[in-house]
């Protein structure tokens, strides 16, 4: 019998479990290239201790970045950070990035911890982001992270793969965030549950690595276990600039078997917005009607890269925020922030009236900073708009959009697209 071709996740899980092949539905034990956690490392190290863990299985594979409550807003969070610093020192974990270096999903690739063809576990649902570089970024929970610290592996069921073909090319003023919002609106919040997603097609190949990160990041919002782009010249160039280590590419075989294939003509996609309170509640901005806003949020792991800040700055150049509107800017990393200062982007944002913050997660999940008041509406480049997500559930609404739409809305005082 001739073996069928394999999809990316089948190949990657085969390799991670030391096998030649991995079949859909099979249970494999995978050892990760990296395991990521953030402020929740305080809770995780507690669980690790209760399990009887003394030394993590391989300190060089553990990655921790402090990003959720940064700088710490109260003594308890500061104490959590202190516990984490003590732990990384005791364990000899050198991949530790303290407050201010940036959001974990930006810091991980920036510092060369993501390469193609590997499994990356993370105690954060947006670990799927790392599929942009052809790695299998798979989210797990805190207890499971502690277990991997102890045992160096965990079990995974090899998932089916959904192929998403992105044809055509993006119109002027339409960015990757609009594309993924459109896709989620079509496929729904559970459309990719338990699946691996692969992005193919002309428009996918033209997308910058940052744009690919936006798509893979949002893959979590379709329920995906993992979301990836095949490696190409753009990926290789990005990785060589970063100075990432040696890697092997695991592109899908030509005869790989996909459960479903979706095809989208990106030339048809216009600026989109996800309305409260679900990420798949997507409509074109042009069909939204009049929605006034109080707060605009630009940044986060979804759209906090230099290209995102520049997309917004291009719209804000020479303009001011609408009266009463606040624009919060959360760059995804110190590196991004530094580049934004150097190339004038930060100045444009500040001049327009933006409040530029420490690179951190902040308002995205209502943990610290930028909380909404009852009755307020926010347009945001983040990844979730669930009721109460930004820390207050009384009559608040969060609309998800692209950096350009967020910027244009901040000027108009209501949700509009830049084109």
């Amino acid at each position, binding site marked *: 019998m001739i073996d069928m071709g394999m999809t990316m996740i089948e190949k990657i899980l085969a390799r991670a479990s030391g096998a030649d092949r991995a079949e859909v539905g099979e249970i494999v034990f995978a050892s990760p290239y990296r395991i990521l956690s953030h402020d929740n490392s305080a809770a995780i190290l*507690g669980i690790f201790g209760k399990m009887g863990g003394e030394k993590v299985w391989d300190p060089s594979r553990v990655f921790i970045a402090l990003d959720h*409550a940064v700088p710490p807003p109260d003594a308890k969070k500061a104490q959590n950070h202190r516990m984490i610093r003590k732990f990384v020192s005791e364990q000899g974990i050198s991949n530790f990035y303290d407050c201010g270096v940036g959001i974990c999903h930006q810091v991980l690739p920036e510092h060369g911890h993501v390469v193609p063809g590997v499994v990356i576990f993370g105690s954060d649902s947006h670990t799927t982001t790392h599929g942009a570089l052809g790695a299998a970024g798979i989210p797990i*929970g805190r207890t*499971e992270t502690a*277990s991997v610290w102890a045992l160096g592996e965990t079990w995974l069921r090899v998932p089916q793969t959904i192929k998403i073909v992105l044809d055509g090319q993006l119109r002027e003023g339409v960015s990757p965030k609009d594309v993924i919002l459109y896709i989620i609106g079509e496929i729904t919040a559970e459309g990719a549950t338990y699946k691996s997603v692969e992005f193919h097609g002309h428009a996918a190949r033209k997308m910058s690595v940052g744009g690919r990160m936006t798509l893979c990041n949002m893959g979590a919002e379709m329920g995906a276990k993992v979301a990836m782009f095949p490696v190409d010249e753009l990926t290789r160039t990005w990785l060589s600039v970063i100075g990432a280590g040696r890697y092997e590419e695991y592109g899908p075989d030509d005869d790989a078997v996909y459960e479903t294939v979706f095809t989208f003509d990106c030339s048809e996609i216009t600026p989109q917005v996800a309305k409260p309170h679900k990420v798949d509640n997507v409509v074109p901005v042009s069909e939204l009607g009049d929605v006034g806003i109080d707060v605009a949020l630009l940044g986060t792991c979804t759209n906090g890269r230099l290209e995102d800040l520049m997309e917004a700055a291009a719209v804000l150049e020479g303009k001011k925020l609408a009266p009463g509107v606040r624009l919060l800017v959360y760059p995804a990393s110190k590196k991004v922030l530094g580049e934004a200062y150097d190339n004038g982007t930060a100045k444009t944002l500040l001049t327009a009236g933006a409040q530029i913050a420490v690179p951190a997660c902040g308002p995205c999940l209502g943990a610290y900073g930028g909380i909404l008041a009852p009755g307020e509406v926010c347009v945001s480049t983040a990844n979730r708009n*669930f009721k109460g997500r930004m820390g207050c559930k009384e009559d608040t609404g969060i609309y998800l959009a692209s950096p350009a739409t967020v910027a244009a809305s901040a000027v108009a005082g209501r949700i509009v697209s830049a084109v």
Partner: protein
Amino acid sequence: MELKGRMWILDEDDINTDVIYPGKYTYELFSPEEMAKHALEDFDPGFAGKVEQGDIVIAGRNFGCGSSREQAVSCMKYAGVAAIIAPSFARLYYRNAINQALHVIVCPEAADYARGNKDDMQLGEAGIDLGKGKIVIGDREFSFTPMSGKALEIFEAGGLEPYTKKRLESSTGS
């Protein structure tokens, strides 16, 4: 093993982890009792105060979608919920539930039946035979696939924490 309890019918699809356990609590190191007080807070503020040990939650599709936060599972467990029945679960919620040894049961027929009759059924009794894969609601019986394999192994150990502890002890010979 059999479970019997009152049904809490959450008549909605896509109940997400932010409403089950709000983000503002996720970086607090709460005790189980404190966590239980916030269970389902942004979906039904009255739930935590009224839920009783052994209650069975019945929900809609894609239950637990959103964040990886494990507390969305633990708060329900500490609040006393014995099992959650839904037509489907978000991948990570299901996995976290196995790891925390909270019974999560995929049974669209039972969930849809309870939701369809919720005015009569709310807080009525349901029974679950975990080994045979049977749910009894009133005079109706429904089937589901019982847990097996790796998931069952972790569950029977009492969750991933005791499972990992045992594995560590056996590998160090202690």
